[in-house]
């Protein structure tokens, strides 16, 4: 019997084991995870993997719009295999287009590519914690190694791509986290308190009933003052509007009627019937209103609240928050649906009947039920945010120098006009990194969705 148990138990693996096994069956998802591991390692150790600092360039000799360095593996004289090396380049100007041309200058000799080079003039930090100046690849000066060419200042594009991955890859995660905090909190509140409106005022008639304590009086005083202020505001706006428009119109009639209706509603709430507001209504109406405005327009209009020339670090945070803000509505809708259906489950009713507090029900029953969904949508929201960041930066409304992002690199690719493309196609390379990162996230998200969804198990 004892030997037989492991065999029979193999059918009853734990839930996480099943999910893990299912995830590994999705070959593309596993590849996505691998690619992301490489990309995020690259971002974390950006200083090590880049060949130069992101903003480093030599004013003399200039190296603007340098094509990718040609790496030689064979000795040109003997034809024998050798260690990879590059030649120094000589810059000339094209007489017709005035674009720089670079030709290999063999007179300066070969510059072998070294591994683990120290660059004391360009130190870097890892997460601002560890200092270092060790780089994976490099050549001796005055040789220069441009793996993917340079931009119009002569800054090494490969290094800029590596440093840009720090911004492009983290902003996606951060923005999704922002929209998740918003969506989960507001969607959760909307779903959990749906049909249970909060009382926002304590009418006078209720105060004189027996058993009303001093705290209730204080609360009533505060809420009454608040509502009175709102009434005053409504009346002031209406009067001002009537003064400005002078003259009768349909709208002025509507405005007066609306104001009278609102004032009457509040007054009734202060005297007899408490004002009740369902958080579900308020939150879902806001989602509806927000989703009525096209995302791209909302994004760029919100960005335009701040001048384009704000501090670079501030613009990073701003873009993160904006991208997060754009995405919260759809999430809140779905979280609300999940919470609403979970709330009606028998085990939640049972917990309520046993006297469990709201907090306990949310923490022990509602949150676990939505957790699966949260993990999946998080991984599917990240590529959208990466896309959004690159788009904003591409329009010049996103990340700014001295920070680097992939979208910003593509913007500078477009700047030189259409003709610049044929002269220096390497400026398009950052775009392929965007595609790679988004593809990998999409694969990962899809794999997670399949792994968590019992109906899709094979």
């Amino acid at each position: 019997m004892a030997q037989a148990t492991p065999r029979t138990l193999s059918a009853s693996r734990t839930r996480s084991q099943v999910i893990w096994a299912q995830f590994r069956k999705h070959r593309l998802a596993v590849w996505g995870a691998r690619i992301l591991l490489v990309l995020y390692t690259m971002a974390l150790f950006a200083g090590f993997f880049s060949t130069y600092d992101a903003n480093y360039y030599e004013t003399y000799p200039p190296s603007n719009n340098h094509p990718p360095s040609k790496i030689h593996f064979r000795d040109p004289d003997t034809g024998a295999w050798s260690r990879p090396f590059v030649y120094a380049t000589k810059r000339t100007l094209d007489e017709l287009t005035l674009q720089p041309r670079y030709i290999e200058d063999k007179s300066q000799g070969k510059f072998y590519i070294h591994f683990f080079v120290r660059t004391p003039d360009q130190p870097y930090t890892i997460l601002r914690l560890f200092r270092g100046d060790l780089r994976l690849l490099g050549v001796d000066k005055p040789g220069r190694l441009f793996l993917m060419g340079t931009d119009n200042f002569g800054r090494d594009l490969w290094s800029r791509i590596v440093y840009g991955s720090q911004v492009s890859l983290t902003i996606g995660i951060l923005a999704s986290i922002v929209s998740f905090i918003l969506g989960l909190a507001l969607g959760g509140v909307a779903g959990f308190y749906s049909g249970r409106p909060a009382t926002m005022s304590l009418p006078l008639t209720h105060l004189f009933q027996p058993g009303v304590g001093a705290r209730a009086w204080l609360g009533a005083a505060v809420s009454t003052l608040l509502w009175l202020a709102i009434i005053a505001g409504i009346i002031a706006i209406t009067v001002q509007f009537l003064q400005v428009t002078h003259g009768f119109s349909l709208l002025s009639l509507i405005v007066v009627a609306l104001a009278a209706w609102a004032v009457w509603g509040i007054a009734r709430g202060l005297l007899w019937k408490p004002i009740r507001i369902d958080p579900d209504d308020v939150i879902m109406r806001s989602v509806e209103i927000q989703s009525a405005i096209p995302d791209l327009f909302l994004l760029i209009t919100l960005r335009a609240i701040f001048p384009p020339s704000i501090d670079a670090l501030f613009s990073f945070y701003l873009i993160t928050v904006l991208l997060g803000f754009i995405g919260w509505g759809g999430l809140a809708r779905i979280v609300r649906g999940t919470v609403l259906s979970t709330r009606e489950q028998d085990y939640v009713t049972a917990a309520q009947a046993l006297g469990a507090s709201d907090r306990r029900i949310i923490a022990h029953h509602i949150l676990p039920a939505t957790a699966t969904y949260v993990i999946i949508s998080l991984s599917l929201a990240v590529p959208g945010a990466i896309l959004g960041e690159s788009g904003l930066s591409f329009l010049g409304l996103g990340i700014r120098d001295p920070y680097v992002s992939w979208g910003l690199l593509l913007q500078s690719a477009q700047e030189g006009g259409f003709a610049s493309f044929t002269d220096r196609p390497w400026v398009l390379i950052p775009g392929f990194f965007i595609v790679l990162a988004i593809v990998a996230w999409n694969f990962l998200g899809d794999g997670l969705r399949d792994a968590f969804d019992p109906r899709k198990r094979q």
Partner: protein
Amino acid sequence: MGTYILRRIIQLIPTFVGATLLAFIIIQLSPGDFFTEKLLDPKVRPETVQRLREQFGLNQPIYVQYLLWMKGLLQWPPQLGYSFAYQQDVWQIALPRVLNSMILVVASTFLLYLVAIPIGIFSAVRQYSLADRVVSFISYIFLSIPSFFFALIMIFLILQLNYAARDAFHLSNNAQILPVGGMTSSGSEAWPGWKRFLDVLWHALIPVLVVTARDIAGFTRFMRGQMLDVLGQDYMRTARAKGLSERVSIYKHALRNAVIPFVAGIGSILPGLVSGVGFVEVVMNWPGVTPFYLDALNSKDLYVLTGFLVIGLVLLMIGNLISDLLLAWVDPRIRYY
């Protein structure tokens, strides 16, 4: 049905007011207005700026401006306001932009339905075959390409193509196989109508392809999922069991049910007209809505911005309504009362 439509329209009023108010506040939150820049111009006296601000009501508080603007909107014909930059009614300058975007949106939607639905059916019918895997993989890639980057790559390829063609056929230096941007050729105003029409089509070819490529990927995957759902239904087994050929059971039973959300989705073309096709218009220099909106945003041309948002809102609401009505029309299980 009539009461349903009426009720829907009444329900839309709070959303409409909320969304326009939100847009109005966001736009006004940015510092300065259209005339702030004029204050720096030594040729313009500060009094003039003051007078212009009063004339356009920009010295009023935001809520009063909003109500005044709403008053214009409720008139017949509705007044969207006045563009400061173009010194014209917003409706007159917005309309040609919307029509330009419409060319791209309508053409790409047409292409989308024409291509995505057959591919989706094909993938679903041959689930897990090599072709299905390849289609899925390509869909993922296209879904992941930012549209502006795809447009950049297309421009690069077109330039290469044009250069190659000039060399191969000894053409003049201005000859183009495909245009790299814009909507019309220079000097096309004098051409006859049919030639101008063909010229616009010629220019629209690449933008339409770029816009569609991304949507096709999503649509194909959606169609495939729909079709797979339907193929697993009991009535499909019944259809096969009673001896219907595979063709009839797929096209007559499965397809009709799988395609329902797509028919209903036609309503969503309308809001797309105003949100335009976004980045592609910017990169490919198409005189559509998005570049215009960005310009207006830069110059703080308040009523142009709100005007576009209002047109967009109205189209979105009409589009949603049409979608729901179409859904009831194609799916007898759905009834509105």
